């Protein structure tokens, strides 16, 4: 989720087209300064420290994660967030039902799913997203194959994942 | 039973447990963990002294608390030094034992010279 906050939502609001370095910088600075305000509150004497801290955090974030090629689009992004929330709710109910049913309703195992996202932050973000969806837990990718552990192999795991990936690509602009 | 008595009993139990592990575990890293348990037990006993010394408008005595903070950091520094020594021992000898007799036994996995 944090991924969407930082690299997607804010940069999406700041930049309808391809994000330029300046826009990325401004978006990240705004995010970290907002984070400071959230923790410290709005006190005049703390604001300079907050600005310096936010600047330092931007420097760290640029060292760790240089601006990528993400071109977030608002409409698919909103659809993705909605789908994530719906999936989260469904996943919670699904696990609760399986755990509380008298006969554990499980058919666990690994499913090898083809993955077209390039390795890197987009793939990592997608794996994080996928690990919170119903019945799936990515356990590492080898080449173009994602090894997913599924709670119920009778479900269309690979097909769902492919649909998720298509929407994810559309929302983040990674092709 | 007030919370501070309970915390004191926990601290005493931690010191006892840690002492037991420190004596019995042959692995030096496990000994180090046990030693850290003793340390946190001692800190906890000192913490109840701080809690009981509430005065001057505070609900605790700040001075023992500040010393516990210093203590936790120093305990970590000591642990790090101990870990470095253990790793060096292993790199030099290929073994992790602290048993002095193991070093004199010729047959028991001859140490690299």
């Amino acid at each position, binding site marked *: 989720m*944090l991924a969407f*906050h930082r690299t997607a939502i804010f940069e999406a609001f700041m930049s309808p087209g391809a994000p330029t370095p300046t826009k990325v910088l401004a978006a990240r600075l705004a995010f970290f300064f907002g984070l400071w305000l*959230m923790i410290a509150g709005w006190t005049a004497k703390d604001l300079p420290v907050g600005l310096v801290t936010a600047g330092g955090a931007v420097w760290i974030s640029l060292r760790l994660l240089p601006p990528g090629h993400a071109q977030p689009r608002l409409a698919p992004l909103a659809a993705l967030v909605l789908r994530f929330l719906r999936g*989260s709710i469904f996943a919670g109910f699904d*696990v609760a039902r399986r755990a509380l049913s008298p006969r554990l309703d499980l058919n666990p195992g690994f499913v090898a799913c083809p993955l077209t996202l390039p390795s890197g932050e987009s793939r990592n973000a997608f794996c*994080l997203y996928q690990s919170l969806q119903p019945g799936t837990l990515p356990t590492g990718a080898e080449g173009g194959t994602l090894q997913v552990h599924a709670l119920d192999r009778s479900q269309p795991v690979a097909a769902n994942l492919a649909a998720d990936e298509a929407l994810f690509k559309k929302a983040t602009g990674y092709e | 039973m007030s919370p501070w008595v309970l915390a004191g009993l926990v601290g005493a139990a931690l010191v006892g447990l840690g002492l037991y592990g420190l004596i019995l575990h042959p692995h030096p890293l496990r000994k180090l963990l046990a030693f850290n348990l003793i340390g946190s037990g001692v800190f906890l006993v000192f913490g109840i002294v701080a809690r009981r010394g509430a005065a001057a408008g505070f609900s605790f005595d700040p001075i023992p608390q500040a010393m516990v903070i210093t203590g936790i950091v120093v305990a970590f520094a000591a642990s790090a030094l101990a870990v470095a020594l253990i790793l060096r021992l292993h790199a030099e000898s290929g073994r992790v034992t602290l048993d002095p007799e193991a070093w004199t036994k010729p047959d028991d996995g001859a140490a690299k010279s």
Partner: protein
Amino acid sequence: MIPLVDLFSLCAIGAGVFFFFAGTVGLLRFPDSLTRLHALAKADNLGLGLVALGLLPRADSALAAFKLIVIWALVLLSGASTAQLIGRALRRGRK
């Protein structure tokens, strides 16, 4: 008006606690470590999300509400990452 807000908080937090409970039951009942990871990651995500949702109307300000959402996001990030790492280590260990 106020009782309605309280009722909402109560329901959301109660539902959140239920999902934590269900996740814990799953942790205890599921047969192996990999399936237990599912129980933890998914049930905690929804459980904590619902607790945060229930606390939202009680937040003092918009910033405090944002803080609740960020806490949820941070727990999601760390929980989901650890679940993947443990899952990967278990898969490697099986081979």
